[in-house]
């Protein structure tokens, strides 16, 4: 452990805390923030083993994945709300 630099150490702490945080939180936006923390740790570990081109590709693909997850979550929330409102007054109509 004595010949590790600063960047692999910080990235390892980010990976472990991000993995625990994704599992333990229950709100999806908190889970997405923790997933961004996990991706930060992975990019740091890729850079610390000198694969710089893969680090560029990975840091371009990371916000695409985050934006897809956020748009999907907003549409999912709208569908859930509409279903709950529709399901509440359907039995009143059937009586």
């Amino acid at each position: 452990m004595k010949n590790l630099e600063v960047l692999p150490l910080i990235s390892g702490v980010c990976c472990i805390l991000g993995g625990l945080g994704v599992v333990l939180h229950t709100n999806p936006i908190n889970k997405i923030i923790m997933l961004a923390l996990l991706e930060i740790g992975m990019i740091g570990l890729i850079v610390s083993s000198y694969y710089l081109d893969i680090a560029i590709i990975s840091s371009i693909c990371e916000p695409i994945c985050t934006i897809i997850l956020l748009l999907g979550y907003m549409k999912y929330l709208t569908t859930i709300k509409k279903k709950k409102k529709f399901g509440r007054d359907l039995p009143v109509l059937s009586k």
Partner: protein
Amino acid sequence: MDLVQYILYLGYALLIIGTLGAILGPKVEDPLIRFLNVEVPSIGVALIFLTYDEDLALMTFIAVNAILSLILIRALILKEKYESE
């Protein structure tokens, strides 16, 4: 402990945490929360690819993973929409 061994053990730890979390984590009956838990072992697999020097496999895995999340979340929204009708 050198750098390669450190990354390898970190990848194994992420695989174990993510697999246990996807099976018996808190509030895992909601499909969106289970799908977000499954993202953790995929990053563990990416770190193990990094350890064995498979650079082309790592690049393909990261790029395909973004497209895979698009398909899965699209299927999840369509399932909710068909169940409400």
